[in-house]
C-alpha cells in the first residue's frame, strides 16, 4: 500500500459538503481539496489529475457563472461521496437549471472548433461516466465516475 494512502474497504464511504459564494476564485481551492481526498482514498492517479479536476471545475464554473449569474449573494453547494467503487460529485446552484438533452452541440466539429466556448459540458461528459441534472431544492448537476 502506498505511503499516506488508505486501502478502501468496501464498507467505507466518505462524504464531504462545502458551500461557497458565487465566486470563481474559490474553484481552485475546492478542486484541490477534492483531489486530495481522492488521492487519500487511493483513487486512480489519472482520475485525480485529469477527470475529477476538469469535470468538477466545469460544474462549479457553470453553477457560479450561469446558474447563479456570478451573484456572490447566491450560494453553490458541492457534495462529494466517495467509496470503494464510485465517486459522486453534486454541484447545486440557485438557478433555474437547463435541459441536458438539449445541449448536444459538438465542439469538435469543424464548424465549432474555433469557438471559444461550448466545451464545458462536452468535457464533463467525456471525463465522467455519467452526467445528470435534476432539481432538489436547487439546480443540481451530478457527476459520477466509477473507480477503474
Amino acid at each position, binding site marked *: 500500500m502506498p505511503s499516506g494512502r488508505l486501502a478502501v474497504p468496501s464498507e467505507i464511504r466518505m462524504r464531504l459538503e462545502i458551500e461557497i459564494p458565487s465566486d*470563481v476564485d474559490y474553484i481552485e481551492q475546492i478542486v484541490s481539496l477534492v483531489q486530495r481526498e481522492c488521492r487519500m482514498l487511493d483513487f486512480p492517479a489519472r482520475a485525480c*489529475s485529469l477527470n475529477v479536476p476538469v469535470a468538477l*471545475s466545469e460544474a462549479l464554473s457553470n453553477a457560479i457563472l450561469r446558474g447563479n449569474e456570478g451573484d456572490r449573494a447566491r450560494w453553490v453547494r458541492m457534495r462529494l461521496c466517495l467509496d470503494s467503487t464510485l465517486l459522486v460529485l453534486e454541484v447545486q446552484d440557485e438557478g433555474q437549471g437547463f435541459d441536458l438533452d438539449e445541449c448536444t452541440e459538438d465542439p469538435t466539429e469543424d464548424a465549432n*472548433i474555433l469557438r*471559444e466556448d*461550448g466545451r464545458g459540458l462536452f*468535457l464533463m461528459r*467525456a471525463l465522467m461516466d455519467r452526467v445528470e441534472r435534476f432539481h432538489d431544492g436547487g439546480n443540481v448537476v451530478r457527476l459520477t465516475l466509477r473507480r477503474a
Partner: protein
Amino acid sequence: MSFAIKKQGDITVVDVEGQLIVGNRQELKQKVLDELEKGERKVLIDFSQTGYIDSSGLGVLVSLSKKIREQGGELRLANLNDDLKTLFELTKLDTLFQIADTRERALESF
C-alpha cells in the same frame, strides 16, 4: 497560479504555472495581448508547470490563436503532459495548435 513572461530572442515565452482556468484565463489573455500590442509576433506558451486546464482556459487559447494569427503572428504550445494531451485530443484542439514536445523544439519551429 501565475504566468511568467520571458524573452528568448524575438520569441515571447509564457510559462503557465498552476492551473489555467476560469479564474485566471483573462490574466493570461491580457498578458499576451499586451505583448502583441508592443509588437511581439512570436509567442510560445509552455505548460511544463501546468496542472489542469478547463474549457475556459482552452477557450482563451483558441482566442489567442485567432488574435495572434490576425496580427500576422505565430503561436506555439509546448510541454503538454499526458493529461493535457488527452484534453487537447478529446476536444480536437490538437489539430488547431502547433504543439511541440519540448520548449527547445517549439523555439526551433518558428
